[in-house]
């Protein structure tokens, strides 16, 4: 089967030839199968945003190739635009990009740029609003009158309305309260399942990632440090530490319990799993 994303020897250098030259990505090779839900984590400045902006042709590789659904993004530079719709990208703090008079028009901006019919646009806007868990009443409101969390959802809906086969989100939960965070992640998982979409989630939060993804890629200083299932990645706390990251808090609790001699399994990375183990320890009683 064709891979959703295939990156070969990707290098990206910013401001080449000036005193500010930075190598943000160096010789990265990485691929994602159709329908995978991948978490990309890494310390500030490790190159996460730079990497994902190659997947819809916003950034051009300094060297190396990026293939999306089997097609080289930069094979024909004039055709790059079509990849914007295939790989939908939600930027960090997407609420700052809202600009239309009504929420409806703002969500319709993407589909309109795709050249869809009005009826199709309406259908997609309604669907997208449902996917992010907003009530359709707000469609006629001004986006500037929404609450912070609603703005964030409206902005995400603006990308979902393009029905991208690959959905990429750059820290979609930054600055939200725990409830809002869980809720947005839940809706993203729903999009992943219902549309059989490939989803890439960039985040700093181990908790976010432990709950939702089935694969984790760790970036460190422009290189891939490790890549595997959450279980595999979280089994190497020392390696994560060297990249300025750490395992989820519950896992740390269990690692410490183990150190103290408790007979626990340390491959625990969500609260639910922790509860199960602890209750098993107490003989099945919660």
């Amino acid at each position, binding site marked *: 089967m064709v891979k959703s994303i295939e990156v070969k020897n990707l290098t990206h250098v910013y401001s080449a030839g*000036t005193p500010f030259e930075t190598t943000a990505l160096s010789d990265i090779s990485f691929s994602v199968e159709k329908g995978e839900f991948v978490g990309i984590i890494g310390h500030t400045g490790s190159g996460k945003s730079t990497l994902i902006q190659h997947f819809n042709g916003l950034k051009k590789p300094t060297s190396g190739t990026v293939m999306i659904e089997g097609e080289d993004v930069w094979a024909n530079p004039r055709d790059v*635009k079509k990849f914007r719709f295939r790989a939908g990208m939600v930027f960090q703090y*997407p609420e700052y*990009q809202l*600009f239309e008079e009504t929420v409806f028009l703002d969500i319709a901006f993407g589909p309109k*740029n795709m050249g869809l019919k009005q009826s199709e646009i309406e259908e997609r806007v309604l669907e997208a609003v449902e996917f992010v868990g907003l009530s359709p009443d707000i469609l006629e409101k001004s986006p500037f009158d929404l609450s912070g969390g609603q703005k964030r959802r409206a902005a995400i809906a*603006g990308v979902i309305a393009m029905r991208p086969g690959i959905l990429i989100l750059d820290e979609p939960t930054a600055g939200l309260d725990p409830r809002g965070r869980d809720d947005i992640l839940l809706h993203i998982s729903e999009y992943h399942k219902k549309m059989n979409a490939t989803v890439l989630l960039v985040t700093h939060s181990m908790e976010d990632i432990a709950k939702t993804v089935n694969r984790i890629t760790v970036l460190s200083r422009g290189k891939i440090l490790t890549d595997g299932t959450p279980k595999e990645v979280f089994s190497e706390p020392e390696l994560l530490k060297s990249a300025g990251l750490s395992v989820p808090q519950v896992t740390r609790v269990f690692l410490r319990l183990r150190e103290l001699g408790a007979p626990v399994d340390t491959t625990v990375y969500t609260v639910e799993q922790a509860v199960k183990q602890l209750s098993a320890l107490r003989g099945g009683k919660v």
Partner: protein
Amino acid sequence: MLQDITLGQYFPGSTLIHRLDPRVKLVAAFLYIVALFSAQGPVAYGLCLLWLVLVTSVSKVHIRLMLKGLKPLLFIIIFTAVLNVFYTPGRIIYEFYFLHITYEGIALAFYMVVRIILLITGTSLLTYTTSPIMLTDGIELLLNPLKKIKVPVHELSMMMTIALRFIPTLIEETEKIMNAQKARGADFESGRLIRRIKALSPVLIPLFVSAFRRADELAVAMECRLYRGGEGRTRLKELSLTRADYYSLAFCLVFTALAILSGKIF
């Protein structure tokens, strides 16, 4: 595209030019402009060029950077040159229907282009080597006498400091918003002029909203620290003139005088 804007950008360094008092650098830039605009004949221009080359080499600013600042103005430079070549009356060298190329036209165009290039590279050297804070401090101190006639010098320089401070932030913000809209299929590069202008509203509206938000936040932050204008304010870094400053000033005065006089003599 946006990265090409080098205006107001400061490149830190520790050369003699970087360490000069900003007042001296401002006066020097002013003298340089005076010299450039009163320059007549090749010797005067040569002196200005020599002056620029000397200062640039001491400041260690890369020549490529100096030329980069010219890129956004290429159109104006070419336009000036063409206009001067064709519309200056004088001895005709070449005629093609209604177009005349004159000897005087070519000479004038050449001098105009040299003048613009020297002007822009010379003045951008000032911002390349002086941090915005130093620059506005310098301006404030130079304009201080105007306080006597009730010019709000401190407020003006504070406004300028803030404006300069926010240029890179706003450029960065513009890029971010442009990328976000491009990701939704916005097209800023094709279509006719009217369409392109219309295509800017998805960028300009969020940009204005965020600029106002930033202004608001900054105002609150300043208020919280009891900012109340210039009266009785002291500085973290008091500026004082050193021997190097006086020598540099003398050097600039000599060059200006030479450039003005050379036009009269030769």
